């Protein structure tokens, strides 16, 4: 509808250009399962990887992957730096609206969670392909459910994992030697130290993660959270959360009248001594911030007792991508032991690897054994268990209710 009406309104010149533009021919695309053919097709392709550009170390890592891809497979990688993944989603949506079903501008997107769920639901993704990648064999989805269920949404081969992340808190040991290690203790601590804790404003991803983490701890029956929200007793499940938040909010930074917008703002508040506890969805966040001079080297990480939420970062290919073969080569490269070991190093990204050590050769395992430990990074043992995400419908409902309770009444 919109397409037709828009064409009618377009000036003649534009319409003429439209009819002259030759239809993009759908090239014979290599089957993901035929890897030799994929490699052959990928050679000489340019892959436009749309990824958030706000992290120094991620940008450097993507550059490094690009050099590797050029050397080993003749694939050119261009990092299109975004300030928000939604910009890439908008792009694919506009291409679909304009009927550009092939030759799209985006070949690969760094994606996960809600963005993936939305693009999958709207049929904006190419695939299945990810489980045909040769290096997929090095992972063990049966031991790591996060590889095939992104926020509980089955990935079904539409996205390929490349790094594990987990909710980790950090504190400055000079100001706060012993941080609280449960949500209940956190509220008590905040009552004694008003104004020294806050969380990003939901629906910011990290703020919502914080709500979910608290919900898992305080709800009477955590198992109910894996069901869609309308099949559970939402009121009963969330009542303890709202009680807990009602008690916490007056003791928050600015008495809860303002919130930082995102994780980056929270690190800044920590650096400015405005708060004493921060958190990030990245076990290496504190070490990264120390390396970037953002935080002093007295900052350390900690996790809450009973485990913390965790999930994987993925890459996906839009349904109309121009260089699908090249994109698959990049995704496979991201899964290679060489790239995974580099990514896992605290000097680079410090994300957890998605590979299963049991499926690697001794030489490959050694790459991981040699990884240094970051100054403020916890070891896998210290990180503790990863909690499963609630069904995504919970997050939507929580965000809505949080906004009604705390987000619109200063």
């Amino acid at each position: 509808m919109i397409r037709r009406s828009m064409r009618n309104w377009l000036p003649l010149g534009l319409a003429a250009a439209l009819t002259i533009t030759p239809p993009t021919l759908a090239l014979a695309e290599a089957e993901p399962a035929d890897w030799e053919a994929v490699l052959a097709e990928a050679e000489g392709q340019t892959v436009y990887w749309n990824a958030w550009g706000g992290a120094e170390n991620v940008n450097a890592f993507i550059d490094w992957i690009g050099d590797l891809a050029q050397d080993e497979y003749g694939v050119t990688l261009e990092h299109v730096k975004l300030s928000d993944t939604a910009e890439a989603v908008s792009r694919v949506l506009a291409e679909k609206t304009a009927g550009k079903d092939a030759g799209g501008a985006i070949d690969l997107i760094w994606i996960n969670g809600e963005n993936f769920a939305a693009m999958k639901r709207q049929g904006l993704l190419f695939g299945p392909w990810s489980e045909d990648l040769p290096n997929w064999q090095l992972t063990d989805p049966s031991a790591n459910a996060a590889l095939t269920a992104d926020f509980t949404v089955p990935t079904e081969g539409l996205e390929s994992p490349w790094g594990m992340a987990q909710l980790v808190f950090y504190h400055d040991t000079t100001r706060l030697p012993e941080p609280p290690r449960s949500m209940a203790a956190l509220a008590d601590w905040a009552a004694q130290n008003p104004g020294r804790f806050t969380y990003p404003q939901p629906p910011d991803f990290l703020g919502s993660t914080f709500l979910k983490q608290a919900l898992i701890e305080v709800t009477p029956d955590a198992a109910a959270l894996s069901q869609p929200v309308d099949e559970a007793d939402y009121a009963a499940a969330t009542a303890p959360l709202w009680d807990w938040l009602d008690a916490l909010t007056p003791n928050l930074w600015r008495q809860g009248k303002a919130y930082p917008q995102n994780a980056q703002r929270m690190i800044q508040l920590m650096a400015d001594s405005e708060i004493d506890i921060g958190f990030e969805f990245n076990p290496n966040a504190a070490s990264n911030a120390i390396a970037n001079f953002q935080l002093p080297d007295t900052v350390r990480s900690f996790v809450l007792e009973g485990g913390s939420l965790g999930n994987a970062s993925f890459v996906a290919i839009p349904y109309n991508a121009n260089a699908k073969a090249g994109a698959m080569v990049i995704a496979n490269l991201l899964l290679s032991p060489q790239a995974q070991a580099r990514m896992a190093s605290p000097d680079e990204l410090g994300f957890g690897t998605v590979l299963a050590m049991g499926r690697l050769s001794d030489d490959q395992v050694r790459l991981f054994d040699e990884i240094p430990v970051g100054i403020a990074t916890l070891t896998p043992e210290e990180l503790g268990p990863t909690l499963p995400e609630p069904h995504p419908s919970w997050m939507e409902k929580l965000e809505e209710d949080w906004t009604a309770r705390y987000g619109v009444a200063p």
Partner: protein
Amino acid sequence: MALSLTRAAPALTLLALLGPVTAGLAGTLAPAFGLMPALGGTEVSLEPFRALFGWPGLPRAVGLSLFTGLAATLVSLALTVLICAGWQGTRAFTALERALSPLLSVPHAAAAFGLAFLIAPSGWIARLLAMPLGWDRPPDILILQDPFGLSLIAGLVVKEMPFLLLMTLAALPALRPAQSLATAQALGYGRVTAWFKVILPRLYPQIRLPVYAVLAFSVSVVDVAMILGPGTPPPLAVQVLKWMNDPDLAMRFRAAAGALLLLALTVAGLLLWRGGEIALSRLSARWLTAGGRGHGEGPLRALGLGFGALSAALVLLGLIGLAIWSVAGLWRFPEMLPQGWTLRSWMRHGPEMLALFGRTLLIAAMSSGIAMILTTACLEAEQRHGLRPGTRALWLLYLPLLVPQIAFLPGLQVAGLLSGLDGTLAAVIAVHVVFVLPYAFLSLSDPYRALDPRYAAVAHALGRGPSATFWRVRLPLLLRPCLTAAAVSAAVSVGQYLPTLFIGGGRVPTLTTEALALASGGDRRIIGVTALAQTGAAFLPFALALLIPALAWRNRRGMRHG
């Protein structure tokens, strides 16, 4: 030949913009009424509006947008007028003008970041107090993100006041204020009173469009509001952006409805302002002619100069703060200066941004050049052929300013894709023209129309045709406003983020797309680097706009304003 060209100019300009503007509007209107086939919206429905009005934060968000927009515009205009009235022609005025004009090239977000670092409870001013007061932790008080948007208003004023001042300075010479003021003062009117009575009534109509632009911008501003404005709830424009960027794609319908509401709000703000104009002109009519010579002008003059200087100082100090951050190592509260210094941020990002400098300036030069040609051609058409009806339709030009970019762009992006130009340098230049042209037009049209027609009449009487009159009389007389308009246009082009990204498809990176992506990491060191680089790129055209008239008129005393 030239004649027919100018005759066709308004139509040509409209045609060039019609596609993008209607496409952009359609991209907002259709989803607001439930139409977006790519998301399964195939039937007209009012559901998006129902969802919008069901959002509990709406009344407050709407109130905030309107209040901050009107207040920022009012304060900016009042300060501009007070500064000019109290100090025009003095040495202090020249100094203030020199201090304020470069501030135009500071991107809004950079100025806001700088201001935030000054006034935050952990900012520079608080750090100055921390030592004597013995704070080791900043006080927990709500200065930034305050619920009434006062710091947001301050952030807007420090940027909009220099803009209005520049527009005023460009418009003034054509009014020949020195003579009028001398006459009024000879009759015993005080300096400020004389200015208000004999200059302002003639000046205001000439800067009306820039004032409207400031109002529209302030009501719908996003980046400054995200840094300084409240968040519980945020102003409507920020909320629309949040819905637009929400991973839940169904939110885009609500975002489109919100964008339309924001458009209505902007129009309502403009109508309110217009109402205020009429009321004020009625109320002041008696005062203007009652013959009061004015007294007690001292406090008014002090107010104007004081706040003008404060505003310049805030932005400059903020910039200095960002510059220090760009070379800072660890820098914590309550330290006035960093513990260590490092060039790392510049070494990492300097080269990549330098590489994009050329393309950014090329796009700025091309788009502002096209915009200036179209604008002067339209205005010439008006002068030569009295093509008012054609130019009246040019209000369409201002639509890109009135509709929030984030909602306007998806439609524009679709148009770009349909045209097959998408992802090319040409397409990026074309879309910049869409956003640059309104500024070129509103900067130039009033001074152009206000030029004394007797100059042209004399030229005609001396036997010169319309072309010679344009090139040898009108253009030289209007050199300063023309260059100002070009500089404003170029700066607007340099600042375009979403249009460049959306139409460029990631194939045409510029300084700004790079800078904003890097700055989204929130590290003040990187924000410092990117802000300075962007300021540098936007400063160049402004420097030229100041330098060229100074050179051209070095021996034409009457052409220097004042």
